[in-house]
């Protein structure tokens, strides 16, 4: 154990085992994202620091590896909990196979080579789409791509199998919930049976106002074009000041527009004034259908000629802006 290479070897082997055990544990879990999240640091650790030293180990021969295996086992036992070790025992064949495969001289050489490339990553030039396409002409790159594709395929295969397993477990849970469901529901059955209150179709229901649409343009202060009975009007016939509006004035304005005001008319007018008070802009027809809960069709029935403008006039609001 005095030989520094051997100490390194032991450390590295322990690390490898720990990593393999981690991978094995991860394999037990179903969640894909967990696997990816945890696999990334594992891969980085393997590629980054281990490769150089693993190369040295390989040169030393696999005999040394076998000799150290006993001590390695002890260390592993010391640094893992009982549950970990139990899982480790279950997966021991897989782990040994993985270790054997990973430590094959050929595999090590390739991995060490790849590790070296990562070590010299600072000299690599950034590459764009076309650089990538050019690089694929290289024979080695093509072969590497084939290998990576195969690795990807197998990883995907494994992940799919894991997902299927998880799905199976979920199905079982769902089935269980289905069986247990009625029992649990019984407690709240009374509340569930209560019929939802039906909305009355007759009176228009004023919905909670949606956020002001992007196409609504804030009202511009109108220019006084005429003053009739002390009330100022713009050239379009809208009130200059919405605060000067009264219900009596609305009736007079409606007469001028040849609209006979009913409760349905008043509901729309009130909704329009409420929306103006809330948003500061005169609602256009689309907005009115949303805030007054009246269909476009009904608006045209109630105010046949240019409903948006007419409503604004009678409700004492500025002429609505926007295209809708």
């Amino acid at each position, binding site marked *: 154990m005095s030989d520094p290479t051997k100490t390194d070897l032991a450390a590295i082997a322990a690390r490898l085992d720990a990593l393999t055990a981690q991978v094995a544990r991860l394999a037990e879990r179903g969640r894909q994202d967990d696997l990816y999240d945890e696999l990334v640091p594992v891969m980085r650790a393997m590629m980054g620091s281990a490769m150089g030293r693993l190369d040295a180990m390989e040169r030393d021969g696999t005999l040394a590896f076998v000799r150290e295996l006993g001590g390695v086992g002890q260390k592993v036992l010391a640094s893992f909990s009982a549950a970990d070790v139990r899982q480790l025992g279950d997966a021991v064949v897989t782990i040994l196979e993985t270790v054997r495969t990973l430590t094959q001289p050929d595999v090590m050489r390739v991995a060490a080579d790849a590790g070296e490339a990562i070590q010299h990553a600072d000299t690599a030039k950034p590459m764009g789409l076309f650089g990538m396409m050019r690089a694929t002409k290289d024979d080695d790159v093509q072969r590497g791509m084939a290998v990576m594709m195969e690795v990807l395929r197998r990883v995907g295969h494994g992940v799919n199998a894991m997902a299927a397993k998880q799905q199976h477990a979920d199905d079982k849970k769902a089935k269980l919930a289905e069986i247990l469901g009625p029992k649990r529901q019984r407690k709240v059955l009374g509340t569930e049976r209560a019929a939802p209150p039906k909305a009355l179709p007759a009176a228009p229901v004023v919905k909670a106002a*949606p956020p002001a*649409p*992007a*196409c609504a343009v804030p009202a511009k202060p109108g220019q006084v074009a005429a003053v009739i009975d002390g009330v100022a009007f713009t050239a379009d016939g809208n009130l200059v000041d919405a605060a000067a509006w009264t219900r009596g004035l609305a009736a007079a304005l409606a007469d001028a527009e040849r609209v006979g005001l009913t409760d349905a008319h008043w509901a729309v007018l009130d909704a329009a004034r409420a929306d103006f008070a809330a948003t500061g802009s005169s609602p*256009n*027809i*689309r907005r009115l259908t949303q805030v007054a809960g009246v*269909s*476009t*069709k009904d608006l*045209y029935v109630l105010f046949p*000629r*240019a*409903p*948006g*403008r007419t409503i604004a006039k009678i409700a004492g609001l500025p002429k609505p802006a926007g*295209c*809708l």
Partner: protein
Amino acid sequence: MTANRKVAIICSKAGLDECYPALILANAARQSGIDAFVFFTFWGLDVVTEEKVDHLHVNLAGNPASGMPTMLAGLPGMESLAGRMMRKQMTELSLPSVREMLQILEEAGAELYGCELAMQMFKRKKEELVPQVKDVITAGDFYDLAEGAQIIFT
């Protein structure tokens, strides 16, 4: 009151960006108390075809305002992608979809017509059009309807 003003709008293209002007103009006319007719002809027929109305595309190729080089804009799937993106953006702004616009127009009292010749060309039947289409008429019928109207071609 003088006789009501009229507009007759001809919609001959079915790009998402190409059909909106016609629909918006017709709606704005109704909102201003102007009678509106919309005549859907040639590619514009897609706008009122049941199976197409929800999947209208945006053509980016050859459109310098799109900001995308024509070479890229011509790649397969690009216009459907652009159409999806534009639809998504319009939903975010709570603008009505084409189908909603057609419903709004019908409710607002605008009249929508399909072109008979285009129907024959694309082998469409009246049942394949959206229910908002009032009738399928010829260009001559359209002129009769639009007598005294201002005509807008889009």
